[in-house]
């Protein structure tokens, strides 16, 4: 894909902003649960750590490295999830995946930064970069981490 307009679709300013100044890129104190995500083929790695108090996510942080899309998506994901309920966070995961498959904005309540990632849907090779943080969050909430990292790259084995 080589059209300059498409490039601007992919690398919107807000994405570059999250990439350059990631939010919540830090360790959290005594996480309730955490999970690792990894796409070895492109070298994207993320660890998501969450503190859950009752049904609310009171703290979340991420660590790792990867391309601008994966890092910006991690930053946005944590910013969205922090302070919300576990159910809202799960709904966010679903809405994000929906956006990646349909190419229509997620329209998550109270947080429209995420809609900037809608352009990624036009770049099939990059959807896995954007999805990794969300998949990893879901894994953390489900079972608090698995023996092998979550991946969004079907060919990474």
């Amino acid at each position: 894909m080589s059209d300059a307009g498409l490039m601007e679709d992919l690398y919107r300013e807000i994405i570059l902003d999250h990439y350059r100044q990631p939010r919540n890129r830090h360790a959290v104190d005594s996480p309730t649960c955490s999970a690792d995500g990894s796409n070895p083929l492109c070298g994207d790695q993320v660890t998501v750590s969450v503190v859950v108090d009752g049904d609310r996510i009171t703290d979340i942080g991420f660590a790792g490295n990867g391309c601008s899309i994966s890092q910006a998506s991690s930053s946005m994901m944590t910013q969205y999830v922090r302070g919300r309920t576990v159910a809202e966070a799960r709904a966010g995961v679903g809405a994000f995946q929906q956006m990646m498959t349909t190419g229509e904005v997620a329209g998550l309540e109270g947080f429209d930064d995420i809609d900037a990632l809608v352009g990624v849907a036009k770049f099939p090779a990059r959807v896995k970069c954007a999805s990794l943080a969300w998949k990893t969050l879901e894994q953390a909430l489900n079972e608090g981490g698995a023996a092998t990292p979550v991946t969004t790259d079907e060919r990474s084995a």
Partner: protein
Amino acid sequence: MTGLNHAPSETQRLPFDLARIRRDFPILKREVAPGVPLIYLDNAATSQKPVQVIAELTRYYRDHNANIHRGVHTLSVESTELYEAARAKVARFINAPRTEEVIFTRNTTESINLVAHAWARKFLAAGDEVVISEIEHHSNIVPWQMLRDERGIVLRYIPMLPDGTLDLEVARKIIGPRTKLLAITAMSNALGSIVPLEVLVPLAKAHGATVLVDGAQSVPHMPVDVQALDIDFLAFSSHKMLGPTGIGILWGKMALLEAMDPFMGGGDMILTVSMDRSTWADVPAKFEAGTPNVADAIAFGAAIDYLDALGMDAVRAHEREVTDYALRRLSDVPGVSIFGPMDADLRGGVISFELEDVHPHDIGQVLDTYGIAIRTGHHCAQPVMSALNVPATARASFYIYNTTEEVEQLASALQAVSKFFGGGR
């Protein structure tokens, strides 16, 4: 036979005329977007194909197509002759003593697995050592790990030095009386480092070990002579050297090939079959069970004719020049650091690099908008990535049709990438 003499058997040397060479590759004329011509710098992954190879492929299907080795009719005889002629071209290209020592496989990976299954499983026992290196492609690591887990052989690695070359001091200690096989690449696909086979092969031979060379990156880019190298097996792929996908080569010394059992059972590889036993056909048929990839083997022959006409010394000289230029030019781009040896004599036409604050994936994506095709990722060499302590690199790799102007465009596009992501973390 008339109608079959379109592929010259003795090729004439042509001068290395870059403009003429580029005209032979139709794909180099295409644009990846309106007004954006292709700059193809992913040759270590696969090369482009000249019209001569594409024409040979269609000519075969149009004029000769038939199954081989089993018909008395004209087409079957012609197909068999063309297929065997391609085998002879391959043999001459690598200076194999005998044409029958050349086995057609699907690719380098299958060739290495063939040796692991049909030679190593028969002749290696628990405790025997197989020596490989830290800069191998996964295809020369995983088959040996599988054999280790199955048979209890011991797998040892020659480590990589920080400059991407192998640690020969450690190699001298690792290769010893327990070494039964040295399985080593001739050139790293991730870093371009040329492996000093002239040092390692004698070390292995001194201990009576068998030597398998992964020539996937060397055979396409430099003269390779299996007799001068004094090796036992050589594996390489057609698709990285102007030929079609789906064809690879395993060359092996006749005595070894004869001692080995078949790799797969079926048609074409047997002499006789009765209800309770079969006897094997001679080499190479023993290793070519079933209908082979006839058309692609024949088109691979045309690719070898093309390289032969240029001369592999001239191919190497051209790539060395482009690589030397690129090493210097890319070093000048702010933020670029290059992995691997900086001396073009020590590396093939492969340059792995990183750009400060920009992930390789993003580099590749933005370069694509300039029409520049490079590879990003771990290049199927994760141990190299671990040794360099990076998750991935960006890699530009050259072939006979690449120019220093293309390197210039890569350099300026990288500057633009740097600016685009500017002031990263």
